[in-house]
């Protein structure tokens, strides 16, 4: 049995102890899934298999990948008309999984993209990569050149009549470019502002053509599903969600890092066993389970399994599955200020509640933190959270995501906010 049987995403990285080169990848069975897919399966069969496997998008929203691919299937059938775009923007604070996948296992992403592009009928594909990801960019560029050399990319791949041109677009850097329609504008060389939906990208995306946007981790799952089948993939998960997940932990734990584990691994097991528990002298108070734009979870949730449905039922989101831990030395008011600073800065500026509201919220939080809070400030924050965060009041989900950690901080750590206002100071500051 090889590590890849239980860890299809990074088992091979562990086996070779670092970067999986082309020869490492091939020796571990790499590119046989692409060969099988292109030579023995029709595009519809691949889409059906991915749907049956219940692969859900790892970019944050958890949309079923096979269903999304189905939207772009069919018309129009002009070769090269559609696009497959990999979302490698990864600017969600606290998230570091896609960097790892691209840097250490770039060929698995390429193989996933070959299969995805073949399934939807795209002959041109892009990886939209963060401009700050210099090493992942070098590794991916090299891997793409190697794959071209071997004719895994290019014309008549594996002797079939399928062609694929794969390129990297380096982002100029804005969080909003991770939102898929903003990403498409950025890919077209424009300002990264979100587009009105509908039409959704599978109908009209990059340069007006049908386009599928998928996260890096999502696409990296595809080769193993094609190789081992839907049932195998479903059985990897511990709960009703299928497959494995790259979970990550940052904060004051003994061993911060990331691990590929069965979907549905309990939070406490992640913190205590994999991250080595909290550092001496620190107690865990809250968790942002899937990046900065998810609601806090607290003590009562720590025994829950990390899967889409459970975390949603608990009032938050799985998001990217990389968790940020807040310990008892951290002031929840100041942490909220830090988070809102990020979202205010990264607003694209298109709509008023987001452009004006978020900086205003950040300022109010800074006032409270600095001992200048007033009676009524918390009610003002509540109202603004409700107004800014309600989906539909803004053009995209950036503002909604910004409010998730704020509204849950106001709910779970309200005593801390009240203490700041009542005593006109921050109890966490060492004077």
């Amino acid at each position, binding site marked *: 049995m090889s590590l890849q049987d239980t860890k299809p995403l990074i088992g091979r990285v562990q086996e070779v102890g670092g970067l999986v080169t082309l020869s490492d990848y091939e020796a571990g069975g790499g590119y046989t899934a692409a060969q099988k897919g292109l030579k023995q399966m029709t595009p519809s069969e691949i889409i059906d298999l991915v749907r049956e496997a219940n692969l859900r998008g790892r970019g944050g929203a958890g949309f079923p990948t096979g269903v999304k691919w189905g939207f772009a299937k069919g018309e129009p059938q002009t070769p090269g008309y559609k696009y497959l775009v990999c979302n490698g923007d*990864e*600017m*969600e*604070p*606290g*998230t*570091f999984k*896609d*960097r790892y996948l691209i840097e250490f296992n770039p060929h698995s992403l390429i193989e996933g993209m070959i299969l995805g592009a073949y399934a939807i009928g795209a002959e041109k594909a892009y990886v939209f990569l*963060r*401009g*700050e*990801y*210099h*090493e992942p960019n070098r590794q991916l560029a090299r891997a793409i050149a190697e794959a071209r050399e071997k004719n895994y990319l290019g014309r008549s791949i594996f002797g079939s009549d399928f062609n694929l*041109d794969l*390129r990297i*677009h*380096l*982002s*100029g*850097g*804005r*969080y909003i470019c991770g939102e898929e329609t903003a990403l498409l504008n*950025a890919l*077209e*060389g*424009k*300002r*990264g502002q979100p587009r009105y939906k509908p039409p959704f990208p599978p109908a009209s995306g990059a*340069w007006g053509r049908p386009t599928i946007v998928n996260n890096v981790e999502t696409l990296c799952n595809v080769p193993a599903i094609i190789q081992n089948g839907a049932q195998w993939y479903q059985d990897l998960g511990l709960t009703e969600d299928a497959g494995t997940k790259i979970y*990550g*932990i*940052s*904060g*004051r734990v003994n061993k*911060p*890092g*990331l691990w590929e584990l069965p979907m549905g691994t309990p939070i406490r097991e992640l913190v205590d066993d994999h991250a080595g528990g909290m550092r001496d002298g620190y107690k865990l108070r809250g968790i*942002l389970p899937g990046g*900065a734009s998810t609601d806090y979870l607290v003590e009562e949730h720590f025994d829950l399994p990390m899967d889409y449905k459970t975390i949603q039922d608990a009032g938050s989101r799985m998001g990217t599955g*990389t968790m*940020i*831990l*807040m*310990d008892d030395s*951290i002031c929840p008011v100041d*942490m909220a200020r*830090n*988070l809102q*600073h*990020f979202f205010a*800065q*990264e607003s*694209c500026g298109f709509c008023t509640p987001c452009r004006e509201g978020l900086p205003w919220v950040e300022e109010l939080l800074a006032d409270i933190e600095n001992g200048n809070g007033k009676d009524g400030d918390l009610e003002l924050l509540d109202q603004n959270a409700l107004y800014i965060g309600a989906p539909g009041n803004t053009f995209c989900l950036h503002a909604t995501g910004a409010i998730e950690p704020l509204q849950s901080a106001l709910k779970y750590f309200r005593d801390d906010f009240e203490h700041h206002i009542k005593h006109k100071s921050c109890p966490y500051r060492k004077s």
Partner: protein
Amino acid sequence: MSTVELISPLTDAERNEIEAEVAHLPDRESAAIDALMIVQKHRGWISDESLRAIAKFLDMSAATLDGIATFYNLIHRQPVGRNVVMVCDSVSCYVMGADSFAQKLQDHLGIKFGETTRDDCFTLLPIVCLGACDRAPTMLINEDLFGPVTEDELTEIFSRYS
């Protein structure tokens, strides 16, 4: 003064690199961000003159291109030093003490965020999550990622850049 003098022409190397991007895109304007990044790589930043030259080369208006250039965090519309230091100020690094680290870094270089040292060696900028949160606090100098960094290492790290 004629407008011609306001445009510093692109070098052959810059033109060739931009054309290589244009070649696989549906139109010239789609290469706008690539072109800004290419010219910035050669010149360090995007001056008004560079901006006009790129706009002309891509058959687009300088105003539209400036709207793009100013939208993106990584395009510098002001001069920067020979090395750009970007310090993560996002939440995981914050939890691991990024605020006090950032203060020490400013003291060490003797400049504030947004400023350049007098010898033009370093420009200091804040940056959002660098995707290395398990190594917090993190910083990026040009293309080199550091983390976790402590105050004690700063002298040695900065001595590697001239």
